């Protein structure tokens, strides 16, 4: 497929292709981080993860409408406000859901699958009733659109760069919270041994609620960011849920590092194969690869030793 192209052309295509892989990687990490916290740390199979993301997307859409109509002067920076609000909205909904639904199911992890799946259907219909069944278009400030011309033939997408930096920031914040803060220490203690953690005076209920809320909040930020590259509609969350679980399970559910590495592996494999083969085949081969590896290593790429 490369006959008739100059070396320079090919080089720049490969640079851009590498960049495409990195964008996909960031998207995967952003999707999966929230779920990795909820599924990995708490053992809750949250099928409504996509709907928490879409809540973030709708918050972003509402912000764009409000800023456009009432404070157009601040429109160029509305996206940052929107992301913060998306975090708060999804996080608050997450904590409410944890209190009303999830906390009764900690001893029955498989039932969380059914309960959150039901929740996802309810949320979809709520979005449909409130925002209408049609997709909404989120307007972006002009500085976030288009691409940077690095050389004559190499262009990188600005929204891609934005997603990448956002991913880095959120990953660093999560890593800091998890491994350096008091809350993180408590979460890890609860994951390792819930009863013992309770016995030494950790309020496990509070830790659970906060963890679930933060996981959902991150999903909301991800959803907010994805309005730049994807669609915002009542069922758009379903577009992400399979890939999200794929990344988390493949990485080894309890390991945040595993999630990141698995996102990297899957995204690079997929984007390379997409380039040389075609979209559908790339997806098939990726899934086959993941299934194959999980057959050999059912616990995923990385395993934490925990006491059961």
């Amino acid at each position, binding site marked *: 497929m490369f006959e008739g192209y100059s070396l320079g052309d090919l080089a720049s295509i490969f640079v851009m292709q590498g960049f495409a892989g990195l*964008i996909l990687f960031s998207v995967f990490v952003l999707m999966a981080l929230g779920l990795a916290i909820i599924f990995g740390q708490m053992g809750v199979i949250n099928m409504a993860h996509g709907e928490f993301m879409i809540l973030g997307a709708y918050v972003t859409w509402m912000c764009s409408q409000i800023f456009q109509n009432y404070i157009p002067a601040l429109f160029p920076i509305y996206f940052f406000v929107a992301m913060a609000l998306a975090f708060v909205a999804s996080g608050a909904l997450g904590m409410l859901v944890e209190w009303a639904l999830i906390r009764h199911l900690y001893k029955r992890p498989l039932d969380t699958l059914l309960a959150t799946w039901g929740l996802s259907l309810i949320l979809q219909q709520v979005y449909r*009733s409130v925002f209408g069944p049609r997709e909404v278009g989120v*307007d972006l400030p002009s500085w976030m659109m288009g691409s940077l011309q690095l050389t004559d033939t190499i262009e990188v*997408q600005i929204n891609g760069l934005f997603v990448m930096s956002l991913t880095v920031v959120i990953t660093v914040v999560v890593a800091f919270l998890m491994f350096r803060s008091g809350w993180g220490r408590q979460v890890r203690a609860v994951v390792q041994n819930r009863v013992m953690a309770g016995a030494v005076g950790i309020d496990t209920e509070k830790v659970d609620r906060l963890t679930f809320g933060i996981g959902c909040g991150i999903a909301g930020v991800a959803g907010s960011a994805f309005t730049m*590259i994807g669609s915002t509609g009542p*069922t758009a969350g379903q*577009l*992400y849920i399979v890939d999200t679980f794929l990344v988390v399970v493949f990485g080894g559910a309890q390991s945040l590092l595993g999630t990141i590495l698995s996102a990297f592996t899957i995204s690079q494999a997929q984007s390379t194969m997409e380039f040389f083969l075609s979209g559908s085949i790339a997806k098939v081969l990726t899934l086959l690869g993941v299934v194959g590896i999980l057959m050999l290593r059912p616990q995923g790429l990385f395993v934490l030793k925990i006491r059961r």
Partner: protein
Amino acid sequence: MSTDPTNPHRPDLLRRRLLMGMAAAPFMGLAARSAFAQAPATAAVNTTGLAVTDTEVTVGILHSVTGTMAISETGSVQAEKLAIEQINAMGGVLGRKIKIIQEDGASDWPNFAEKAKKLLVNDKCASVFGCWTSASRKAVLPVFEQYNGMLYYPTFYEGLEQSKNVIYTGQEATQQIIAGLDWVNKTKGAKTFYLLGSDYIWPRTSNKIARKHIEGHLAGGKVVGEEYFPLGHTQFNSVINKIKLVKPDVIYAIIVGGSNVAFYKQLKAAGIDLSKQTLLTISVTEDEIDGIGGENIAGAFACMKYFQSLDNPNNKAFVEAFHKMWGDKTVIGDVTQAAYLGPWLWKYTVEKAGSFDIDKVAAASPGVEFKGAPEGYVRIHENHHLWSKTRVGKARADGQYDVIYETADLVEPDPFPKGYQ
């Protein structure tokens, strides 16, 4: 907050409609009485036990108002209800008011079949307006054939189907595709095409027809790439890079649903300028642009039979009535218009046949014309598809299309095209 967009009795619209109704009331009585006087006896127009009384005839509307497809099918429901309301205001069909029974397909194909059976067997509907995806149509087809019902199907689709029990009011693939390819070949001198699609029957069949036409009928025509993506795919950067590498004259895109939004946003972000790179699509109507965002797709060309901006008196009246009923911001896409044709074509066919009987309606269908069609003029072909013009529109940043080309004559529907299979 909760307003059902397919319910015309929303409080915000009710007041305006009440006023309208009151103004029209004196005349309505007259019209109804005179129409009733001519109405033929029920026994004569309904020999097979359909739900037809002396004053009423029952029809079904079967679309998804919940689930993924609600995005697309809402417009069709709105158009069908508008058409039925207008027909009723004119005195109905054979002097009988149309009563609607609406069922929700819920984006689930077996469910469509079940609801179709309910509408035909329990409710004895004289006709059904519904379905959107090919999958749902395929699911209900055996039901309509077994229980002898009449379905008016609005979506442009892949062809390769014909039934006594279905009238296809959207275009089949060759009507939509060939004129557009010829146009882009002539006016842009386009020779190389990159075909893209979502991975299911409609884009694959359509691209097959497109490929045959490009390679067999266009001077120097060549397909330089053909690729499909799973439904719901959201990452197109790799294929966009490939497109940058091969630099086709035309990107021919048949991507649907949420993927559509991702594709055009990423195309724009990747710096592909649609004013320089020709892109021709047959899957983006004004409805889809709502989600994509006009600025992301401005400059692209779409090939279908109807655009909201179409400049003719029929369409002006239609758009005005539609906005009055459903709000000013609602956009009208190709399929919405095709759905609007359904009730009208049925009315004219019933009046031509002088009967509601399904067999007589099916037999009377060929040749029935609708001169008030927003798209201009349509006529039913022997094969139960419509003769219609094909048009090319150029997307504007405000989400509407400028119509820049239309075929001189009506294009003959050809659901089983020879040499294209």
